[in-house]
C-alpha cells in the first residue's frame, strides 16, 4: 500500500516505512542507541530526498527521545543540570547547523556533505564498535583486568567557569558540556541525528560522567535540540515531512517494544558485533555511491511550490 508523502513528494510503501521504523526501533530496544544515524541513510536509499530525510528524522527523533527520557527519568537517571548546560550549547550549534545546511543547499553541495559526513561518522563508529565488541569477547576469557581510574586530570580541567554537577558527581568547566553540545547540535542539524553515538562516548570519556546517568541526560538534551532543528528546518527549508516522521515513530514504537524484550535474552557482544557490521555496511554503501560514476552527471533542482 503506497502512501504519498506530502513534503517529500514521493509515494512510498507504508509497510516499508513501518518496517524501517520498526527495525531501527528494534535496534533502540536491543542496544539502547537512538538509531537516527541509520534512519536518514535508509530513507535516502528508498528514494526520499536527502534534505527531507534529514529534517524528518529530526522530527521523528523528538518523539523517540521523549519516550526514552521518560523511561530513564522514572529510574532517576537524568542529570537535569548537565542536560540544560549541554542544551545551551546544542541550541546554538543547531542554529549554526541549519544555517550551514541552508547555505550548502543553495550551493548544491548539501547532499554530498550529508553523504560524506555519514561515511566518516558511520565508518568510525562501526570500526570502534567492532573493535570494542571483539575486545569484550576476548576479555570474557581473561577476567581480572584492573579497573580504570575514575578520570584523569588534563588541560580540560584548567578551563574557567567551573560548575558543580551533583547528579554526575562532577566539578568541571561548563565550557566543556557547552562545547560538546554545540558540536553535536551542528551534526544534528546537518545529519538529522540525535548524536547519541557521539555524545555518549564523549560524556563518559571526556566529561567523566557516571555511565548510568549518561543515556537519560543525553536523550534529554536531544529532545530539545531535535525540536529546535525541526522548527528551524520547517521554517527555513520547508523540508520537514510530519507524515513521514509519524509513520516512522509508529513503526519505531512497535520495534522498540519487541527489541527490548529480545535485548534481555540475547548475548550483547555478538549483537553488538552484528550492529557494527550493519553500520559499516551502510557506510560502505554510501561511500560506494559517492565514488561510482553517476548514470547522469547532471541533476536539476527547482522549487516545487
Amino acid at each position, binding site marked *: 500500500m503506497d502512501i504519498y508523502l*506530502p513534503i517529500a513528494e514521493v509515494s512510498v510503501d507504508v509497510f516499508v516505512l513501518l518496517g524501517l521504523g520498526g527495525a531501527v526501533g528494534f535496534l533502540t530496544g536491543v542496544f539502547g542507541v537512538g538509531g537516527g544515524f541509520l534512519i536518514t541513510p535508509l530513507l535516502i536509499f528508498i528514494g526520499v530526498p536527502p534534505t527531507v530525510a534529514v529534517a524528518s528524522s529530526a522530527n521523528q527523533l523528538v518523539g523517540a527521545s521523549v519516550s526514552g527520557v521518560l523511561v530513564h527519568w522514572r529510574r532517576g537517571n537524568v542529570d537535569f543540570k548537565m542536560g540544560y548546560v549541554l542544551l545551551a550549547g546544542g541550541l546554538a550549534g543547531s542554529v549554526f547547523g541549519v544555517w550551514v545546511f541552508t547555505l550548502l543547499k543553495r550551493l548544491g553541495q548539501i547532499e554530498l556533505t550529508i553523504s560524506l559526513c555519514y561515511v566518516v561518522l558511520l565508518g568510525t563508529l562501526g570500526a570502534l564498535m567492532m573493535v570494542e565488541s571483539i575486545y569484550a569477547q576476548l576479555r570474557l576469557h581473561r577476567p581480572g583486568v584492573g579497573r580504570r581510574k575514575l578520570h584523569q586530570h588534563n588541560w580540560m580541567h584548567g578551563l574557567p567557569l567551573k560548575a558543580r554537577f551533583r547528579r554526575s558527581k562532577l566539578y568541571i568547566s561548563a565550557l566543556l558540556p557547552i562545547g560538546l553540545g554545540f558540536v553535536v547540535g551542528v551534526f544534528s542539524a546537518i545529519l538529522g541525528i540525535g548524536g547519541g553515538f557521539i555524545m555518549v562516548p564523549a560524556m563518559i570519556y571526556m566529561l567523566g560522567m557516571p555511565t548510568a546517568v549518561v543515556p537519560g541526560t543525553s536523550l534529554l538534551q536531544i529532545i530539545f535540540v531535535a525540536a529546535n532543528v525541526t*522548527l528551524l528546518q520547517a521554517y527555513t527549508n520547508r523540508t520537514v515531512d510530519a507524515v513521514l516522521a509519524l509513520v516512522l515513530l509508529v513503526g519505531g514504537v512497535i520495534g522498540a517494544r519487541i527489541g527490548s524484550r529480545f535485548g534481555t535474552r540475547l548475548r550483547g557482544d555478538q549483537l553488538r558485533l552484528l550492529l557494527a557490521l550493519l553500520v559499516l555496511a551502510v557506510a560502505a554503501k554510501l561511500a560506494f555511491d559517492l565514488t561510482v560514476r553517476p548514470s547522469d552527471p547532471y541533476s536539476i533542482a527547482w522549487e516545487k511550490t
Partner: protein
Amino acid sequence: MSRSPAKMYPGSHRISARPSKLAERAYSRHFRFVALILFWAAPAHAEALVADLTDHLIAITTGFTGASVVLFGAIDGPGDVAVVVQGPDREMTVRRKSRIAGIWVNSQEVIFANVPSFYFVAASRPLEEIVSPATAAFYRLGVTNLEMKPGGMTPPQVVDEFVSALVRTQRHARLFSDSVSRVNFIGERLFRTTIEFPSNVPTGTYLVQVFLVRDKDVVGGQTTPLVVSKVGIDADVFGFAGRQPALYGAIAVLTAMVAGWLASLPFRSA
C-alpha cells in the same frame, strides 16, 4: 457540427473569438501569443476550432499514481491540429558533477529562469510537415523550441550541454513528452489525444493550447486551463507547511512529543 455551441469550462476561452473576454482573461505571459492570434486569425472563421478536456482538475490524493486526460474537439474545415500543454514556469538550476579526489561533486551550475515544469506536445502529423520553423518557435511547438536562456555569461556550447541535460532529465522523469504524440482524427473533423501525467506531476495551473494549422501557419486556436492540485489531507499538510511554516514546525514537534509520551507508557498485557 463545429458551429454547435460547445460546452465550455468556465475558465476556457476561444482565441479566435470574443476579444473582450480574451483581454480580461489573458495570462500576462501569454499576452503576446493571444494578441498575435487575434491579429492573424481575424479573417478566419470565428469558431474554426473547439476543444475541451475530459477533466479540468487533476487531484493529487494519497494514492495518486498519475493521471491521463483526454483532449477532444472539432475543426470546421480541413487542417491539422497541434496541442501544447505547459506546466507553470519555474526557475531551474542544472548542476553537473565531476570527479574530484575520487568522489563525484557538483562542480558547475547553470540557472534557467522560466522553464515550463511540464511540457507535452502532440500533433496530427509530424511538426515539421505542418508548421514552418518560425511558427513552431513562436508557439513553443516542440521541446527544441522552448526558449531556455541562462542569466549571466555562459558560453553557448556549455548552455547547449546544460539545456540538453535538462530536457533529458525532465524526459526521464516523464515531465517532458518524449516525442510529439499523436492527435488522432476521427473522420474529417473530430480529433482527440491523450495527455499522460506521471505521479510526480508539479502542481499549479497548466495551459492547454490547441492550434488549428493550415498552410504551415496557425490560423486558429483555443486555450484552456488545467489545474493540478493536491487535495485531501496531503494538500492540507503541504499548504499549511508552506503558509505557516513556524506553526507547522511547532505542531510537528508537539505531535512527535505526544507520540513519544504515549510510547513510553507501560504496556498493559492483554
